[in-house]
């Protein structure tokens, strides 16, 4: 594996390993149920954001239908959990993910002919159709505005502490795995093809990369992860309604991605963390939450293009340059 992550040194790998161990040990030390619930919910949102970032940031396709894909995964998993009770919950969630992946691939085809703003409108209207159909479903498959009020979920019979811990670990494992996969994909043939199609579609196609195939694969992967995130949300909250795919959650997710840095591996992680902290601080002033988030989004987009990750990498480069200058001037022997 180290070969594919040639950008990371051994020290970086050890730091990453230590971070993962710390994250894994965290719930054994910390058990406050209120904050643990917030953290676990943020984990689900993070999984969704990783999947969205893959299409929106890396592939550069203006897909604003990701929340519909996410909701379809939740509905798929929920339907299986409620009506096919013999099926293990994990399998149901994976099936929900597969269902989302299929829908996402189908959505990829019409977007192939469109550019920029038109793609966003097409995917946005797709999401609206899904939401309205789910709300007004005449056959009762989705439960209308009530959604799925009681779903057993992954761990139906557990005390609160171990319930939160179990979900925390499952979600953290998925996050680590998907971050590694995204980091690997970014440097793989597919990732490079995706980014070069984003930057220059004509040239990339002329160099023998099939844009259709590449985009379909990207949509499929991203859709699968989004669907799994939907299944996770459903199973952790033990319920799901259409309000999870409305305009408000969408604007919050976009804010997270943009604040963190679109198209980067760590962007979703940092963005989700920052926005969750802001929301938790402002929990007593629900009206101000979105006002402040909207203002933050505006300021970040205008003054810090590239988000926090872009800011960090620029600053560290600049600091690195200073350090080099100094060491050259003062003590050339130092590495």
């Amino acid at each position, binding site marked *: 594996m180290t070969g594919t992550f040639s950008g990371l040194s051994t020290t970086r790998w050890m730091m990453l390993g230590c971070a993962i161990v710390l994250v894994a040990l965290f719930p054994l030390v910390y058990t406050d149920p209120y904050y643990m619930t917030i953290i676990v919910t943020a984990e689900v949102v993070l999984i969704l954001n990783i999947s969205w970032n893959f299409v929106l940031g890396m592939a550069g396709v203006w897909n604003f239908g990701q929340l519909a894909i996410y909701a379809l995964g939740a509905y798929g998993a929920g339907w299986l959990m409620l009506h096919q009770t013999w099926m293990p919950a994990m399998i149901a969630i994976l099936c929900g993910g597969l269902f989302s992946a299929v829908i996402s691939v189908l959505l990829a085809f019409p977007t192939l002919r469109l550019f920029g*703003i*038109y793609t966003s409108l097409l995917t*946005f209207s*797709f999401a609206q*159709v899904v939401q*309205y159909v789910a709300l007004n479903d005449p056959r009762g498959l989705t439960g209308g505005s009530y959604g799925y009020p009681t779903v057993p979920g992954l761990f139906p019979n557990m005390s609160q502490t171990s319930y939160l811990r179990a979900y925390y670990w499952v979600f953290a494992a998925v996050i680590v795995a998907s971050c590694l996969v995204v980091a690997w994909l970014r440097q793989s043939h597919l990732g490079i093809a995706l980014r070069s199609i984003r930057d220059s579609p004509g040239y990339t196609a002329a160099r023998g990369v099939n844009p259709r195939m590449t985009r379909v694969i990207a949509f499929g992967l991203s859709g699968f992860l989004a669907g799994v995130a939907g299944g996770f949300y459903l199973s952790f909250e033990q319920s799901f309604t259409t309000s999870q795919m409305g305009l408000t959650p969408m604007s919050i997710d976009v804010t997270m991605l943009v604040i963190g840095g679109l198209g980067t591996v760590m962007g979703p992680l940092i963005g989700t963390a920052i926005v969750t902290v802001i929301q938790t601080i402002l929990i007593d002033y629900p009206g101000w939450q979105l006002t402040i988030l*909207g203002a933050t*989004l*505006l300021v970040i987009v*205008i003054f810090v293009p590239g988000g926090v990750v872009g800011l960090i990498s620029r600053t560290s480069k600049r600091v690195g340059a200073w350090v080099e200058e100094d060491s050259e001037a003062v003590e050339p022997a130092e590495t």
Partner: protein
Amino acid sequence: MTDIVAIIVNGLVYGSIYGLVAIGMTLIYGTLRILDMSQGSMVMIGGYVGWWALATHGVNPLLALVLAFIVTFVVGTLTELVSVQPLIGRRGEVDFEMVTFITTFAVGILLTNVALQHFGPFQKNVPPIVSGNLDVYHGVSISYHELTMAGVSVLLMGALGLFLARTRWGFAVRAVAQDLDAARSLGVPVSRLYPATMGLASALAGVGGVFLGALYFASPTAGDLPLLQALIVVVLGGLGSLTGTLYAAYLVGLMQAFCEVKIGTTWTLPILYTAILIILVIRPYGLKGSPSEARL
């Protein structure tokens, strides 16, 4: 027969108001290459101005419309100064269309939530501009309010057309839409033209908001549905094409009226969106759009 008359009458009324809200978005996209997601908030602000003027102060309806026009013009200009102006000239550094999409969206979130803080979540009743009903055909009636709404919308759209075709500022707007650099080098004051264009487009939506507020309510989220409908209209018409937007507005209006009379209100939006999905797959740039060049 009654059904057909009802569909046509309602379709024309809906079409006019959609045209008024959507034509601003087209104007902005045509000149500035911005999909203005704050346009819905302007409808919302117009609704509140209407409520403030008509319900609490009993102002002359015509004055209320002028007031809404001025207020949303100012808010629209400020929106441009905050969310677009800092990004101009950085086209190499940022993806202009996407970033402005996000910034105007952020302004929309801000305005909605400020309204929520200030006015509370409850709906306010806006009195109609003109009261009374007109019986068109055996049982099909139309309120004078809706008739005024359609009339004012058509009038404003005509005025916008004249403004673009005849006045000096209109020439400047069209010149910028055609070729930004050439317009700039010939002395068009782009840094003043951009805010003015966005203010004008917002003002049209604001006037629409007063009418829509009386038709429904004034509330913080009153702009969401008009925004979605305007998006349908501009995409269907081809972003940036004024005539395309007009056709699309009346087409969407008639389609909506047809759905409401024949199928039921709940399915109106899904059907419209499905129609959009199909049209975009067949014609990726809308009915009258062209790939990326100026179309105003």
